């Protein structure tokens, strides 16, 4: 997903869940920061690199895809952008090395998602924002894995966009080009994707790179053959998925706010979204690569407050100048990010896969184990 949903739509969901304007700003800022908190940024503010929640294209281009590099990549992308659905999934006739990657496929309503939201309970607005980013991305990035893998993330020429046409739909083949500086041409169905690379662990095969930005466009509906699908066609309906993401965010935020007793899979708060459903649907269905303006207008209409634009430098001075960094905004964000990464890495390691590295539980002096 993009800034339009991670920042403005998250604000809307938080407001509908009962948070104050200031809390909503904290939550949505944190949600959007997940897409910016790279090792480069952390080095700049002298923060621990372990807290990285993303990797810039430049970092990925230079990264070595040896075992250590791949573990670094998987830790970040599987923890924050492609939360694995079933770490114990099986596939007939598949050897272990295939299954390790197959089990990292992202999908909605997973046990890990429940753990993610529960982990954020009582940890403040920054943790809530991170959890909402992870939740939203499970809807946009479903069917792809947060590890470089040709056999899981590849797509081929069988890729068709489904476009509303009056009462029905028409289809047209999607044309992919490999020019990273060219913008997507959604009018003519020409999109940029990553170059096909034979190598299993090439960074070109990370996440939804082979499908370009299509999964991140709320208006997109398309059908294709995922590499792992054994020729079973997937029809992705982003307007419907994004609406579900929005309603699930409201439910999750209500739980974090204390209005829901628990957070369970497959539950959505549609009642709070109902008065705004038509406006949200209009935004989601509009063919545009950036819906920030529309979402911002809706958010301001909802809360009656002005929503400041996302400013990456907003809390950096506070962090660098403070003597108690942990109590600053970024300090709390970093703590929450490390906790999320630890949790996901632990579960991946527990399932028998070393793709995200080795995770060990430190035993505390009091005799129990520390998590």
């Amino acid at each position, binding site marked *: 997903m993009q800034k339009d949903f991670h920042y403005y739509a998250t604000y809307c969901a938080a407001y509908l869940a009962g948070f104050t304007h200031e809390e909503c700003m904290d939550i949505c800022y944190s949600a959007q920061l997940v897409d910016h908190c790279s090792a480069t940024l952390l080095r700049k503010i002298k923060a621990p690199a372990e807290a990285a929640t993303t990797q810039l294209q430049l970092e990925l281009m230079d990264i070595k895809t040896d075992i250590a590099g791949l573990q670094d990549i998987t830790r970040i992308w599987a923890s924050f952008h492609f939360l694995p659905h079933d770490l114990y999934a099986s596939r007939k006739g598949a050897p272990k090395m295939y299954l390790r990657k197959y089990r990292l496929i992202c999908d909605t309503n997973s046990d890990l998602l429940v753990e993610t939201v529960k982990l954020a309970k009582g940890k403040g607005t920054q943790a809530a924002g991170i959890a909402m980013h992870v939740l939203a991305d499970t809807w946009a990035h479903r069917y792809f894995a947060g590890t470089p893998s040709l056999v899981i993330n590849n797509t*081929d*020429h*069988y890729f068709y966009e489904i476009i509303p046409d009056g009462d029905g739909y028409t289809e047209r083949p999607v044309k992919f080009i490999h020019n990273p500086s060219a913008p997507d041409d959604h009018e003519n169905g020409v999109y940029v994707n990553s170059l096909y690379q034979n190598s299993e662990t090439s960074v070109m095969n990370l996440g939804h790179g082979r499908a370009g930005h299509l999964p991140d466009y709320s208006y997109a509906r398309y059908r294709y*053959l995922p590499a792992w699908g*054994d*020729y*079973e*066609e997937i029809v992705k309906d982003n307007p419907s998925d994004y609406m579900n993401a929005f309603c699930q965010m409201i439910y999750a935020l209500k739980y974090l706010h204390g209005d829901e007793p628990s957070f369970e899979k497959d539950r959505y708060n549609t009642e709070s979204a109902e008065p705004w459903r038509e406006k949200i649907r209009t935004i989601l269905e509009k063919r545009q690569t950036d819906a920030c303006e529309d979402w911002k207008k809706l958010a301001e209409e909802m809360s009656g407050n002005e929503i400041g634009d996302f400013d990456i430098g907003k809390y950096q001075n506070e962090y660098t100048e403070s003597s108690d960094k942990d109590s600053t905004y970024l300090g709390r964000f970093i703590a929450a990010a490390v906790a999320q990464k630890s949790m996901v890495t632990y579960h991946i390691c527990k399932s028998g896969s070393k793709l995200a590295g080795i995770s060990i539980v430190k035993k505390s002096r009091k005799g129990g184990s520390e998590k």
Partner: protein
Amino acid sequence: MPVIEEKNEITRKIRRYRNTLYITGSGISALGLWSALRLVLGLMISPQTLLTPEITENISGIVGVLVVLVAFALVIAPLLGLYLFVGKKAREEGLGKKKNSFYIALIVLLASLHIFSIIYCFMGLIGIIPFMQDSIIGLIVSMIVDATAAVTLGEMCMSAVMIRIYEKKNTGN
């Protein structure tokens, strides 16, 4: 199996065979180009692996080489054209575009040529054709390439036939 589920299973199989057609179509075009290049390179670098000693003894200077090259071009060019045509039609059908059943006959023809070549090389290997004994490795390489091509063409033929069978079944359902 309920009709709808069976139809989904048939559609999946058609997709699988179309994908195989697309890949084997690309593969056979590449194999054709590679075989042509290998023949030309082999002729330029080690002609004794391709021609009888009588011919190689009589080739002298550039003129002889040119004459032989042109003669091979008259054989290589049509063959290469066949490979590329078959590959193109297979890819088109693999993409779900126009169907052409004539190329299936050409697949069978090409596969037969490769099988004949395997037999010919084998005869050279066991000494029935003496001049070829000087290049055992070259013979084995040729047999491997021919076997690859024959299997590819066989898979292409099977995919094309299965698509037709399943599409008929689909329309029947």
